[in-house]
């Protein structure tokens, strides 16, 4: 009989080090030899509210900046200045069952870089990644702010903060610049001002919002992106107060639908109004809606299009053919119905169009094994999805 001493592994809570939470992911990385693969995580997150006192310092309007500083210093009882404090955020960690989604209070000794750089590095090390693209978290709701000017000011402050505080910390950390899409001119100015930021790989529209993407007022924006060869991504989100979503009483139901609904709507407008024909070189990436919605929408649109081609005259091929030329991130990949998943991969030309993403540290994150373990992928297809597609699209260096 062997004597067993106290184990170094402990129950996990909000104080646990990322590397301990993800120790099993590290084991998968070692066993699968991820070091032989280029792995790019195209959608992960940091919690910008922890740095909100820094971010508000970049607000350009002096009156709003002073208000924000005062609020951050003296006021309690509300979400950070300018953010909506969405209802759903309270449920993300499922009542404490998924601690890393609730908070990450682990010790960080390193002082030479921002804390979020250290946390991101720890996740990269654990998952065996070469690059991690980070997005903010509550700012995903900013598109529903009742004051469009607040989206402009905060989006711009965040972009500056990214440029000066986060991205210089590690060249493996990348980000998409935030577009204040509710104000088309400000969005255009964002592209003009932030295209050269080191570490930025494109621009993002947070999808939870009520602006039609095909409106004429956005054409200059798309032209500017196309001209610069910058990809445009639509990062899904939810708005529980949306009149349809407000019928859903459980977070699970609202989340399952709303994270897809926003991108269903934007994609439908994008395709039927012929945006891919108008801007054939503009690359779009659809993030964090999973994959099951894509074959659904391809079938719905193709079916109706042939009966009503006069309503979408800019199209020169089937809606699904445009969709299959766009890019998608993988998470949250619906893996419970393997045959459906395999067909989805075929329908979206996953081997060239799909980009692995983790969504770490959110409650439904996917480690790279979700792609690595798929039985139906070719070796090259696997390499493409894990990193090569992203490397080409985002113009990353080989590592």
């Amino acid at each position, binding site marked *: *009989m*062997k*004597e*067993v001493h106290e*184990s*170094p*592994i*402990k*129950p*996990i809570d909000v104080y646990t080090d990322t590397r301990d*939470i993800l*120790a*099993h992911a590290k084991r*998968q990385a070692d066993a699968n030899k991820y070091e032989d693969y280029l792995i790019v995580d195209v959608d992960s997150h940091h919690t910008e509210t922890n740095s909100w006192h820094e971010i508000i310092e970049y607000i350009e309007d002096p009156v709003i900046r002073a208000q924000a500083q005062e609020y951050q210093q003296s006021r309690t009882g509300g979400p950070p200045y300018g953010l909506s404090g969405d209802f759903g955020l309270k449920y993300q960690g*499922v*009542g*404490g*069952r*998924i*601690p*890393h989604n609730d908070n990450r209070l682990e010790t960080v000794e390193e002082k030479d870089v921002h804390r979020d750089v250290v946390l991101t590095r720890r996740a990269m090390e654990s998952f065996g990644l070469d690059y991690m693209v980070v997005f903010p978290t509550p700012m995903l709701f900013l598109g529903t702010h009742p004051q469009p000017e607040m989206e402009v000011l905060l989006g711009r402050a965040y972009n500056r903060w990214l440029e000066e505080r986060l991205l210089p910390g590690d060249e493996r950390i990348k980000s998409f610049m935030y577009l204040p899409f509710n104000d088309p001119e400000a969005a255009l100015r964002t592209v003009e001002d932030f295209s050269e930021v080191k570490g930025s790989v494109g621009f993002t529209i947070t999808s939870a919002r009520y602006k039609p993407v095909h409106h004429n007022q956005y054409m200059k924006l798309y032209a500017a992106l196309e001209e610069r060869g910058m990809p445009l991504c639509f990062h899904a989100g939810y708005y529980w107060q949306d009149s349809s979503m407000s019928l859903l009483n459980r977070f699970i139901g609202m989340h399952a639908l709303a994270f897809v609904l926003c991108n269903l709507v934007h994609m439908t407008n994008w395709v039927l109004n012929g945006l891919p024909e108008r801007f054939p070189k503009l690359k779009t990436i659809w993030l964090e809606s999973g994959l099951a919605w894509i074959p659904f929408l391809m079938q719905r649109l193709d079916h109706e299009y042939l009966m009503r081609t006069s309503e979408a005259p800019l199209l020169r091929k089937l809606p699904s053919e445009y969709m299959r030329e766009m890019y998608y991130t993988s998470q949250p990949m619906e893996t419970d119905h393997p045959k459906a998943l395999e067909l989805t991969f075929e329908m979206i030309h996953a081997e060239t169009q799909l980009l692995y993403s983790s969504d770490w540290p959110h*409650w*439904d*994150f*996917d*480690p790279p*094994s*979700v792609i690595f373990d798929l039985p139906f992928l070719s070796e090259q297809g696997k390499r493409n999805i894990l990193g090569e597609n992203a490397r080409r699209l985002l113009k990353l260096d080989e590592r």
Partner: protein
Amino acid sequence: MSELFVGREEDFEEQDRRLIVQDGLEIGVFRVNGAFYAYQNQCAHRGGPVCQGKILNKVEEVLNEDKTSRGLQFSKEHLHIICPWHGFEYDLRDGVNAGNRRLHLKKYEVEVRKGGVYVLI
């Protein structure tokens, strides 16, 4: 078959756990209603560290006779171990997943002998 010494029975409070590691094999040992249960620390979902998760009573929804809902409550009978990676829940007494009975944890026998708790592997 070999056995691993986990600890003294009297050192386990109700709902206590110990995590043991032997040659890379991680096992969680739990005390529930006086009995001991042991599972591999490997979630059936994506291999997460399930035994390091929260222990909570199962959540139930109570219906009235007329099928109206009375709301949620914690079960008095079923205790779950919840994987901290994504929240998969397993009954601590049999290791079976709460949402899909085809999923379960790898279970190990536990023996209590002369006050010592042993896992058989």
